[in-house]
């Protein structure tokens, strides 16, 4: 009887319960423990092992749809890099990305400025903005960064920017930090840049694309991997931060438990129906 009622349950009840399970921990955090995984540690260690003051390439290939997963890890990576006094050259290969990436960079830079630390656009970091062409842009950057991006996001001539004075092509960077929401993203950077120009790279990506990137991590083509909001939260943990990703993980855990319970109940209903027929 109960199983029959479950079978006929209006799906809107499930939406309501899921909504409440997500809303509750955001208002009243449970502070469930977060244990950093090996790929997240590797991501953290790859940046930690960089020489102080080096210039790093960071490609933020996402748009506002991936904000909850990718903006927290972008901010944490920028903080870690700037704490090491690294200079950051940012590119965007998604046409919806330049505005949100620029906002993320400036918000993070403002945190440093509020503490009295000097971070200057064009000197300590630059957002080269969006360039159409996907893989073609990646290959073109191997021939020259400034010729590929003649103007930055704020339409400054890149040949006059102090941060790019000693930057020629990929050989000018010790590491590529790719924050990726899909195509073009980590897969294309591995195929076109890591394997062709041998530039070491790490990736932070949306959870939905993680299974596709794990083989790259296992093969050593990626030095570290952040898997969605969970990866971002683990990375925040490693950096001693408590940001939006950590804040969202209680809700994430409860939602997963609920989805797992729904799958279990759905299978119980299915099995019982089959048993009835037999």
């Amino acid at each position, binding site marked *: 009887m109960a199983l029959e009622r479950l079978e006929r349950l209006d799906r*809107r009840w499930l*939406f309501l319960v*899921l*909504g409440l399970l*997500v*809303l509750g921990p*955001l*208002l009243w955090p449970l502070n469930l423990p977060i244990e950093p995984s090996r790929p997240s540690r590797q991501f953290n260690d790859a940046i930690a092992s960089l020489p102080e003051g080096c210039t790093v390439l960071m490609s933020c290939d996402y748009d506002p*749809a991936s*904000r*909850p*997963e990718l903006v927290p890890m972008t901010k944490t990576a920028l903080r870690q890099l700037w704490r090491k006094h690294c200079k950051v050259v940012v590119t965007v290969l998604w*046409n*919806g990305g*330049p505005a949100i990436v620029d906002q993320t960079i400036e918000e993070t830079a403002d945190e440093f400025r509020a503490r009295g630390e000097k971070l200057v656009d064009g000197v300590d970091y630059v957002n080269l*903005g*969006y*360039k*159409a062409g996907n*893989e*073609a842009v990646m*290959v073109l950057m191997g*021939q*020259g960064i*400034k*010729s*590929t991006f*003649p*103007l930055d996001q704020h339409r400054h001539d890149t040949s006059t920017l102090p941060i790019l004075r000693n930057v020629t092509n990929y050989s000018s960077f010790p590491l590529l930090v790719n924050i990726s929401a899909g195509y073009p993203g980590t*897969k*294309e950077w*591995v*195929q*076109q840049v*890591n*394997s*062709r120009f041998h530039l070491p790279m790490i990736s932070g990506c*949306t*959870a*939905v694309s*993680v*299974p596709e990137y794990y*083989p790259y991590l*296992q*093969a*050593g*083509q990626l030095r570290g991997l952040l*898997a*969605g*909001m*969970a990866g971002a939260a683990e990375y925040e943990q490693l950096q001693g931060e408590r940001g*939006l990703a950590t*804040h*969202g993980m209680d*809700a*994430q855990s409860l*939602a*997963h438990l609920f*989805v797992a319970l729904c799958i279990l109940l759905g299978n119980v209903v299915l099995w019982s129906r089959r048993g009835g027929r037999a």
Partner: protein
Amino acid sequence: MSHDFGVWVGALLTLFIFSFLYKDNPLYKFAEHLFVGVSAGYYIVLNYWTVIDTNLIGPLAAAFSGKLPGGPWHVQQGDYRGLLVIPGLLGALLFTRLFRRIDWLSRFSLALIIGVYAGLKTTGFAQGDLVAQVQASLQPLWIPGHPGASLNAILFTIGLLASLLFFFYSREHRGALGGATRIGVWFLMISFGAGYGYTVMSRVSLLIGRFQYLLGDWLRLR
């Protein structure tokens, strides 16, 4: 509560979209149509300024302004000056698809695009996936002093071979081959399960992001 008009618009549109979970309604339709229209307009303007103006009109104007040393045809790597007329023309040819009688002209541009990307994709895949992944798959099955790593390597090899055999359709999956493919199915199912779990995480993250916006930016409850 926020006093920012933009935040209010964002919050109300979020609630309009959420209202679809109850049932389809005019508020949802309004938000949906607004999103489609604004997105189309935004991307057209963005692409004009970041692609056409930056990569074509600006450099062409500079090349023919007479101010650059060497003139418009003094071409070097990364500075193509007057030669940018060619990609400009190829780009314009794409629009001939709008006119039936001359739409065949667009094939020149499409042929170039397909050729370039096929070349890039093929070499990228060969270097980044095929060679590197095969290389990474060749690992020792027994690592002295590391039983866990050895077990992992054995499981990996069994999973790899069994999954590959599942996609071998030249013989009926019976007998030893059938047994191996059944093991392959198990490994594939586990990988689909992991993929589903990560997809759920991504989708729930979107919901969390919206709730964080409503609670934080709009209601200022945290």
